[in-house]
């Protein structure tokens, strides 16, 4: 029952946040809904670790290890984003109608995000992924500036292009299943008949879905919309987009991995992932806008997860899951920090910001913390997961892939730290005077920064048993079925 | 064999005498659609009779090409009429003299000499129209080629009579996509080669905008009559190729008797008049394209023809 209840909570919040009961009702309702959803997701995760799979509606709605993991990430980040939005939006907006519209769209977006892992049937998963795109467009365009509208237009155009191409891929996948003798129409059913599916059809379907959903994830060379959309949206929305939306689409792609012939799958996944990591690492070096910096870092990390999944059993899949977790938590924190910096100095340009640690100590410290964490410095979570990827690569004797990965990640680390270092330290410049320069940071934002920093630090030092169990369960879902 | 020659002669006679009637009906219908009364359907005959009785004025700057061209423009459609099925279902005496490509080239010969003759005089409007006619001509060439290739590939031969027998034999193939697309491409080709709207305005008098009409600007008297008659026959022959070979090869004489052949005449005329109705609808509902848009129009015709070829070669 809680499986059906979880998506209904944000849906109810959509309706409630439309009620004109003052400017504080909508954020409060959203926060309450996000907290309840997070609690339900934690409970579901614990039950799944015990029971391996929970079924609400056979063949249509079910949650297994991978879905539960994604649910946890989605609900946690949305809780943090809801908390952060309270203060951020209050500092940015005073129009009650726009605030209500923001929260309504926010809850709709979270609803769509929660829906994706719940679906057991591939075509309906496509629909849910489309929903996440459609319901987030107006959030990207929320600022209503020229840049925001350009970003939103590019976003929706490329999202839909990817969706249409992936749709054909899903049809061909269905065809492959029928050619293998039918079977139950769900992800589990597909895995069961995977060895019998004609390889041509499976590879064609995977190619189409890779191009289509790869556009949505942000793999190079289809990533051009990502820096725009993930920098022009309001910061809590950016956290949701970068932290969990790309992860959700990647989840769909990872569901396809067990269906492919293992040797070919490994090559494709590693090549696509490496191209993304490489392109993002080098493009990072010449950004002029710190939110775009973090957006390119998202492209890089999506590539790392894909490479890890390409390394294969047994270590590769586990590290891919670990990387997914650490990236979601860390990236959302980075965007919260970027939002704090934006509130402090009022501009997104790196060149205009100097000495942030003196102008606004909280924002400066958070930005430095986030940059170190996402770049992969110890003792943060991303360091642990990236190191695990390297280790898995060496274990699989994939030395070339591991070497390239090390080089690219180092370049990216260097790039991020270069820019953030310049921003945080140095002589403070006179702040450029738009409306929000020098605003003191709202207390909810500070609280969110503290709360979101905790898992980033803790998971780099210690891995609780339930998390390990969940990751193992999730990794087993993307491991290929034994082939004769 | 003597009968075959006789039927061939009847065929030529039909083309020569009935072509002005078809043009007359076309103009009358267009005028009726525009809520006017229009000239009589026999007006082209009266025009030709009048022109044959007028004096001819020929520029002294022109050469033998100018004097020779009207005869060529008159004769080339007649030669093509010997090759294509106009009245009969079975090949006639001259049927194997040339195939569809040959027929296309013979028609192009007439057009080529008309262009030369237009340049031959010292009139500035002649070469303007001639260059435009050539542009339309060479853009239409690829469409011709693709259409003929596809048709010949399906029928296994390039002789029009044989193509006609094999093209629409089981009736369900009428709805095949390659068939429909080829029909569309060929209609666009007839509009371009026949100088009809949307490519060119056949009733226009403004020399700067003329494309096909400019070939007969300088002619008078007998030369003018022969050019006009040749133009009517070219349209008639194109319609015959379209209808009798590609679209609706019904109503043609099956038996090898004179009665059957004579009976075929009104049936073929009926078919052509049906097509004339379609032409009238097209001409009355579209506007003339600007000159540089003709490239897009013929490009679309080319794409349609190639799409027909694709669906034929790769389907099933």
């Amino acid at each position: 029952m809680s499986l059906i209840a979880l998506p209904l909570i944000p849906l109810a919040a959509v309706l409630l946040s439309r009620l004109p009961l003052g400017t504080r009702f909508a954020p409060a309702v959203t926060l309450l809904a996000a907290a309840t959803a997070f609690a339900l997701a934690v409970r579901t995760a614990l039950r799944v670790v015990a029971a391996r799979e929970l079924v609400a509606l056979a063949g249509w709605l079910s949650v297994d290890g991978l879905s539960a993991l994604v649910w946890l990430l989605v609900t946690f980040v949305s809780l943090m984003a809801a908390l952060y939005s309270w203060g951020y939006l209050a500092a940015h907006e005073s129009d009650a109608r726009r605030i209500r519209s923001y929260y309504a769209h926010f809850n709709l977006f979270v609803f769509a995000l929660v829906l994706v892992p719940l679906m057991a049937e591939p075509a309906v998963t496509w629909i849910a992924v489309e929903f996440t795109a459609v319901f987030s467009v107006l959030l990207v365009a929320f600022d209503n500036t020229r840049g925001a509208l350009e970003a939103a237009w590019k976003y929706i155009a490329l999202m839909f292009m990817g969706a249409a191409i992936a749709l054909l891929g899903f049809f061909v996948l269905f065809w492959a299943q029928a050619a293998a003798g039918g079977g139950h129409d769900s992800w589990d059913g597909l895995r069961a008949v995977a060895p019998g599916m004609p390889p041509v059809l499976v590879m064609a379907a995977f190619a189409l879905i890779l191009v289509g959903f790869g556009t949505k994830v942000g793999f190079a060379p289809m990533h051009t919309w990502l820096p725009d959309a993930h920098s022009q949206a309001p910061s809590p929305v950016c956290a949701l987009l970068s932290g969990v939306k790309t992860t959700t689409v990647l989840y769909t792609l990872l569901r396809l991995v067990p269906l492919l012939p293992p040797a070919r799958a490994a090559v494709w996944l590693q090549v696509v992932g490496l191209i993304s990591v490489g392109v993002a690492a080098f493009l990072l070096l010449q950004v002029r806008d710190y939110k775009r910096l973090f957006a390119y870092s998202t492209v890089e990390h999506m590539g790392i997860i894909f490479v890890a999944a390409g390394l294969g059993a047994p270590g590769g899949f586990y590290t891919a899951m670990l990387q997914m977790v650490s990236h979601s938590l860390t990236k959302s924190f980075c965007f919260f920090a970027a939002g704090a910096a934006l509130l402090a100095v009022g501009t997104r340009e790196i060149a205009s910001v100097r000495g942030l640690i003196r102008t606004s100590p909280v924002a400066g410290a958070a930005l430095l913390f986030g940059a170190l964490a996402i770049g992969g410095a110890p003792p943060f979570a991303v360091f642990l997961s990236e190191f695990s990827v390297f280790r898995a690569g060496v274990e699989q004797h994939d030395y070339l892939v591991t070497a390239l990965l090390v080089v690219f990640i180092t370049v990216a680390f260097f790039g991020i730290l270069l820019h953030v270092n310049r921003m945080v330290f140095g002589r403070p410049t006179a702040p450029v005077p738009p409306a929000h320069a020098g605003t003191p940071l709202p207390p909810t934002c500070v609280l969110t920064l503290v709360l979101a920093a905790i898992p980033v630090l803790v998971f780099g030092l210690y891995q609780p048993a339930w998390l390990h169990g969940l990751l193992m369960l999730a990794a087993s879902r993307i491991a290929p079925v034994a082939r004769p | 064999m003597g009968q075959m020659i006789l039927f061939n002669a009847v065929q030529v006679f039909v083309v020569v005498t009935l072509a002005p009637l078809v043009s007359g009906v076309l103009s009358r219908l267009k005028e009726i659609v525009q809520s006017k009364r229009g000239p009589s359907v026999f007006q082209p005959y009266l025009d030709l009779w009048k022109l044959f009785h007028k004096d001819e004025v020929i520029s002294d700057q022109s050469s033998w090409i100018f004097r020779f061209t009207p005869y060529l423009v008159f004769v080339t459609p007649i030669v093509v009429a010997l090759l294509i099925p106009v009245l009969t279902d079975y090949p006639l005496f001259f049927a194997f003299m040339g195939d569809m490509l040959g027929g296309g080239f013979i028609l192009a010969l007439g057009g080529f000499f008309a262009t030369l003759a237009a340049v031959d005089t010292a009139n500035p409007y002649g070469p303007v129209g001639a260059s435009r006619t050539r542009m339309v001509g060479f853009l239409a060439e690829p469409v011709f080629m693709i259409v003929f290739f596809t048709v010949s590939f399906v029928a296994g031969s390039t002789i029009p009579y044989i193509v006609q027998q094999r093209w629409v034999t089981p009736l369900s193939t009428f709805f095949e996509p390659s068939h429909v697309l080829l029909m569309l491409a060929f209609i666009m080709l007839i509009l371009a080669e026949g100088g009809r709207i949307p490519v060119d305005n056949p009733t226009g008098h403004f020399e700067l905008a003329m494309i096909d009409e400019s070939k007969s600007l300088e002619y008078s008297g007998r030369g003018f009559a022969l050019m006009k008659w040749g133009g009517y026959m070219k349209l008639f022959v194109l319609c015959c190729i379209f209808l009798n070979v590609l679209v609706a090869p019904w109503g043609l004489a099956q038996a090898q008797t004179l009665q059957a052949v004579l009976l075929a005449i009104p049936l073929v005329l009926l078919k052509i008049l049906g097509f004339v109705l379609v032409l009238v609808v097209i001409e009355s509902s579209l506007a003339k394209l600007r000159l540089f848009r003709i490239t897009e129009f013929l490009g679309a015709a080319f794409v349609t023809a190639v799409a027909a070829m694709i669906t034929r070669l790769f389907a099933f």
Partner: protein
Amino acid sequence: MPGPSAIPWLQNLNALAGGLFLLATFGMVATRQALGCLRLFIAQSACLVLSAFLLGMLDHSWDLMVVGVVDLAIKVFVNPWLLRRSLGREVYTRREITQALNVPATLLIALALALTGYFLAQPLLAVTGGADIGLNLPIGLAGLLIGTFTATVRREAVPLFLGLLATENSAFFAGLAVAPAMPLMAEVAIAFDVMILVFVVGILTRLVHERIGTTEVGALTALREEPKA
């Protein structure tokens, strides 16, 4: 349900629907008027619906018939109406479509893409073929490539989006034959999802028009890494 003697007729009619679908896709590439593009999109959707009905009759599948009815309502009537509403004011300011490439070159590239689509479909058809899949899959793949290409060269918002909708139509056209047993609910939900998308894009286009003054989204190139000149 038709008897066995009617099957060649139905297959030929389906082939005709496919040919007209391809022609409508080429027409969308060749046309210069925004409203003309919209009308050709309606024609393309109508061919899709026709093919759905014909395949439903051939396979004796009520699912495909219902899909045809739903698509008729949504793709032929609702979506164009929603687009025309957002195009409404635009018609009087930007009737013609501007592209990054001229029309004849675009047509030739579309032709090359159609041939590529046919070639790419051959190895898939070699696995399991049927007459219907043999027709719908190559045309769907060709339409997918052409629609994506059209969306990259167009500069105005609504014709660009029409190119993307044509891509989705083509994917669906191929899917009718390739995956006829897909759950009905999924196919219906896909159609509704596209409708919601069209609605949201209408809102976005109106926002762009209000803020920037024109819907020529091809001119929005401010977000990039190079230093502002």
